[in-house]
């Protein structure tokens, strides 16, 4: 076990709001440009993923994910905003964020 530990202040919010896959992100900063409240800031290093600096100000509009050309960015609701549903025919319960979720529904929206 690693004994070198750091003093880490509590994050301002109990959640991250946005996660970026560093392997898919090209550092184009489209997400940074469209965010209405500057949740994201460009990385000092060109080509590296932006920093999520103000997740507490996130409005969860999803414009960042809409404009990401590399499918690197995901916006997710925190646990205290996760909703469930019931399968009508079987009575089974499912929810956002469960372990072993059902397979994704890939039907696109209208337009």
């Amino acid at each position: 076990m690693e004994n070198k530990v750091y003093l880490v202040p509590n994050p301002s919010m109990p959640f991250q709001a946005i996660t970026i896959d560093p392997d898919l992100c090209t550092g184009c900063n489209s997400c940074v440009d469209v965010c209405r409240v500057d949740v994201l800031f460009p990385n000092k290093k060109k080509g590296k993923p932006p920093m999520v600096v103000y997740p507490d100000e996130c409005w969860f509009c999803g414009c960042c994910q809409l404009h990401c050309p590399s499918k690197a960015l995901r916006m997710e609701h925190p646990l205290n905003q996760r909703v469930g549903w019931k399968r009508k025919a079987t009575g089974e319960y499912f929810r956002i964020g469960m372990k072993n979720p059902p397979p994704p529904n890939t039907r696109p929206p209208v337009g």
Partner: protein
Amino acid sequence: MSKYEQTAGENAIEWPYPVDYDKENEVSADVVVLGGGLAGCHAAINAARRGAKVALVEKGAVIRSGQAGSGIDHWYFVCKAPGSKVSPEAATETTLKSEPFDFGHTVYIPCMESYDALLDIEKMGVEFRDVDDEFAGAPFRDDKTKIMFAYDYVNNHTIRLRGGAKMKPALYNELQRLGVAIYDHVMATSLLTEGGKPGARVVGATGVNIRTGEFYVFKAKATILTTSVPAALWIFSTELSGAGAFCGAEPNMAGDGNAMGWQAGAEFTTMEYSQSTSGGFSYPNYGVGNAGNTWFACSIVDANGKEVPWVDGHGKILKTVEERYLPAPGDNGISFRNRPRLIPDLVERISKGEFVLPLYADLPGMPKHERRAIWGLMVGNEGKTRIPVYDLYNRSGFDPDKDMLQAVVMPPDAYAMGPGYGPAVRQWRDSGPGFTAGGFVVDWDLNTTLEGLYAAGNTGRSRHGGAGASSTGRYAGRKAASYAGKSRQLVIDKKQVQAEKARVYAPVKRKDGVGWRELQAGLCRIMQDYCGEYKSKDVLEAGLRWFKSIRESEASRVYARNPHELKKVLECFSRLTCGEMIMHASLARKASSQALNFNRIDYPEKDPPEWKKFVTIKQESGKVKVGELPMNFWLLPPYAPTYAENYRLHCDL
């Protein structure tokens, strides 16, 4: 050295944008538009088409800013659409009967222009019709025009928008094509007036770039305010802010325009209106089982699958799903109060155990086209739905053909209007759009009481969604361009600019003190306590004393360590001003009002005849001046007595 620099030491992260607080940028335009949402974009586009040189100033990025930035699903008041059976006059009169403190002219203008505005947007590339024929055969789809209607398939007063999620980018492209100078990430901070005096003609505005900290002076012959209305005046939660926030409570809505107008001496009305909400403690908008608005008219069942019946506007039980989309006999469908709804005694029947919680939205039980319309067309194009609800829920395995989305569990009495987003918390109020919010007094030119200053969208009290914003925006754009074309050269008062620079940058000069978050939470607490559900003279006056004291103490010690924090601090000042305006308006209305959701302990009688009027407020010679306007002032002298005649005289078409 600030506390942050002391703690972080050599690990402090440098601000990633080039900062220049001392730089002053001067921009000259014929028309400057402050606020780049739907109203502002249409204003800028239409002013530019009239030959005006236009500058558009936006706190976020115009391509996605505003309430409709991430999408929009409904387009209201399409009286001029083929298939619509409601005249602009009838739609306006019905709306005013149901919402007596709306403005007739800011409803009538959308009734005349909302369909034209939509055709304009269609030319910009937004395909709002059912071009893929996905809904061929649906009762809400006109097979000739491929227009899809919402709510009422007889009167056809509202359109369902395919392509709504792409509306702002299309407007952004049009703005660029027309050569409008767009200033993204610039917050407008004050209006500039002739001679630097309040009450004088507006000659431009100041702004600050919230990434670089640079100052802007916009010199313009006409100014259009399209900054929406204030939100988050009563609610600031650091635990749950954005996810549940109503898609109408866009985070940049700090009441900046109202505050700027108040300082410049403009007249306002209906600022005393407010409503309790569940605020940031709601669940994701349109992401829970419900039966209203975007989800109209989804079947609702209880935990045992028992269906909750629907009634029409006269209380008659409806037997089929199809009937929910028909108007009650004799109704034109315009007022949501007369539309089909879940049984009005749902509260009692839940309390007695007849309907067992939790409730569910029975999408699988809906007809195929309505199901796809709700989950796919509406959820998918409405604001905050394409990614946060449609994409997230679908990739988590949700299938509307098989699954019933759970409704929020609330105390039984919270189900009075059917399943919602969370129980309203009485101290958490809002005076924002979607409600009869207060704003600038505007005339039939959408001119405020200050020469050279126009207001459209929510700011100009046209609150009926994107259609209202777009219609009044394009109208104000034409009017402002026309005025600019006829008006004389103006001079910016250098002393006024310097005073504003000193105000804007004061927080930047402080290394420590009070943070913006503490200030905002404190302002909200004052509103909750002193401007709450039940008001009275001594309590409102105590609230004003608190705000005055906060200005002298905490607010004069607030710091901003970077341009983003500066933005949040300046928004606190806008909110503080709006809070004071609301308290003054509340003191001035010495009667309770059902229509305004306004309760005074010291004046409990609701809407006595002598108070059936608009109460107006403005600053004059450093004092608050109270006035009044009759309920139908837009049809009284100096205006013509009919809507049609006024529109003909003023619309500039």
